[in-house]
């Protein structure tokens, strides 16, 4: 009996791991044979491959927040935000593609303090993952924080302009941050169950869960602040309600990219894996009172189960390259990573 159960478990493990790694391609092929497929499968991988994938994303986030808060790269220390090392295996990127003097001219002290907190924390995540990886660490790949935002904003459409500068002002910074944070949550949420059952694997899992929680806090913070500011008064350039619309458009881009669907058709997907913070379209029924009510969407989660979306590495790749991870087995390039990521999952 025990042997049989073990065998069943082994099969489940194998299929689950394969699904999560290659899910983008597998699901797209099954459900939508006429659409492009997400790049796919990695035959074998270890815990360090998952951590290095996460490190690529942390490089991206930390670089964005350092430039927003300080106007300098993560290799430069600023007060509590330490200088980060960016060398390692793979192809090291050149200077970050970004506008000159990118420090955001914040006018809202609260938003400025949030930007600083997040910069410090993302920098520590880079350092934490690099320390955990030791000699297996990958270098920071080429990062683009200019053309990427333009491409994403163009795909999202109005009210985002085709030339979108996340470093222009407080509101644009929040929208720029919005683009990253929920993606980080879905990536860590998808990766958490993939770690091995070895003692080091369990240690990595604990670390990944601890970072997942922090990314959840960051994402919740950004969505809450955008929601509280969406009145046309705090950020006059965005009339009341437009921030909610903008995040819904961005979420649609992310969902389409994750599912390898063509961009530009807002309602292409009946069951997106991403939602803006505005009021949910459908009412829900609460408890014994059985009342039907409206609700906000300050959490980016499955509408029924209230569990965070779990994305495969392929799905995340497709988002950060803005839909360019379309050919299975080839390097995904474009968007925020014009030359692709470093490491096994690339």
């Amino acid at each position, binding site marked *: 009996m025990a042997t049989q159960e073990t065998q069943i478990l082994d099969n489940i493990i194998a299929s689950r791991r394969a699904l999560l790694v290659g899910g983008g391609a597998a699901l797209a092929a099954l459900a939508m044979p006429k659409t492009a497929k997400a790049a796919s499968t990695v035959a074998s991988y270890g815990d360090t491959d998952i951590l290095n994938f996460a490190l690529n994303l942390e490089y991206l986030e930390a670089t964005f927040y350092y430039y927003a808060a300080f106007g300098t790269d993560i290799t430069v220390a600023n007060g509590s935000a330490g200088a980060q090392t960016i060398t390692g295996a793979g192809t090291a990127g050149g200077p970050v593609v970004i506008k000159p003097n990118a420090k955001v001219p914040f006018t809202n*002290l609260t938003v400025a303090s949030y930007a600083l907190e997040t910069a410090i924390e993302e920098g520590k995540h880079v350092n934490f993952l690099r320390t955990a990886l030791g000699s297996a660490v990958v270098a920071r790949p080429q990062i683009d924080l200019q053309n990427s935002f333009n491409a994403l904003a163009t795909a999202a459409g109005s009210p985002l302009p085709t030339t979108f500068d996340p470093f222009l002002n407080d509101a644009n910074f929040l929208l720029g941050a919005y683009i990253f944070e929920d993606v980080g949550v879905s990536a860590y949420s998808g990766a*958490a169950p993939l770690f091995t059952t070895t003692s080091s694997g369990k240690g990595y899992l604990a670390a990944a*869960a601890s970072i997942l*929680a922090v990314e*959840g806090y960051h994402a919740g913070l950004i969505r809450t602040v955008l929601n509280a500011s969406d009145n046309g008064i705090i950020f006059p350039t965005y009339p009341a309600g437009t921030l909610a619309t903008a995040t819904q458009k961005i979420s649609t881009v992310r969902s389409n990219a994750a599912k390898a669907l063509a961009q530009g058709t807002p309602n292409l997907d009946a069951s997106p894996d991403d939602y803006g913070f505005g009021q949910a379209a459908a009412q829900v029924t*609460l408890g014994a009172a059985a009342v039907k009510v409206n609700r906000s969407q300050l959490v980016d989660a499955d509408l029924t189960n209230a569990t965070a979306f779990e994305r495969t590495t392929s799905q995340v790749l497709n988002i950060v390259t803005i839909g360019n991870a379309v050919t299975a087995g080839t390097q995904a390039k474009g968007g925020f990573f014009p030359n692709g990521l470093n490491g096994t999952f690339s």
Partner: protein
Amino acid sequence: MNTLVELAEKRINRRKFLAGVGAAGAATALAGCQSTGVNPGPTVNVGLVDTDYLNFALNLEYLEAEFYLRAATGQGLLPADNSATLNAVTIPAGTVVGGAKISGLSAAQQNILNELAYDEQAHVRDLRLLLSGLSTSSLTAAVSLPNLDFTNGFNAVASAAGIGSTFNPFQDWDHFLVGAFLFEDVGVTAYNGIAPLISPIGVAGPTNFLANAAAILAVESYHAATIRATIVGNTVAAGGVSNYPYFTYANQISTLRGTLGGGNETPLTLPGGTTSSPTASTIVPATTTNATAFSRTTDQILHIVYGKAGAGVSSGGFFPNGMNGHITVTQS
């Protein structure tokens, strides 16, 4: 009482009793089974399995769901969401003291409250579904709603934290935020603590325990950030702490949680400095070195929700008769 129910509850108590005894005490435990009223002593996490941790989390989700549902609607969970089934016999839910619909909310505030209530109701259902996917004729199934007490629970917290002799989070939006603040960061540290204890691959697909725990952990983090950021934002809008005492209340609760829960706290701070050279906020409670979220042991969580430190604590605070399941008594 229905004989089958009685038998079922006896079995639960016996299992609870056995779970509450360490390997060293196993021999004496067997002898003790014959009599009633024996103090099982502190729990030792020997032989705990995934379902025990999920049921521990379910107790916390019951607490949160009842809190938010009552605040949003005046009523709690549906009977279908709070009872338990054992050997085909329904074990009724416990009773809930306190909790009332908050009046005078703006549409935006009600929307946020409704979201929190729906999410926690969904988490109760998620965990119950995960647990019921296993045999309902064994104690691996979901436990029922334990007795809860919001009135005395919050009053005890307020007294211990130095806020005052009573505290009613259902009074208005600002009081509610303080009550929610108490629960949300606790939920995050609890899930973060149990995630590495759950088998990485428990059951396949949508019933994967770890994947679900991680996905719920993330949602609790979103909630916690919403509450923390809203309290900070309200304080700034009010013109400072002197005009908004709820900021101080929240930090007094944070201090109390730290005392009972092994530290693991980062108090709220107000934005300072200038827009070009600000001080960092502390929306995220995390370690200073690595910016990783805190995790707590089940003991530390029990100390917080029972409102009492030390070994052998089996009830108190929000759980007047303790949690249900196998992780109910503190061992340290």
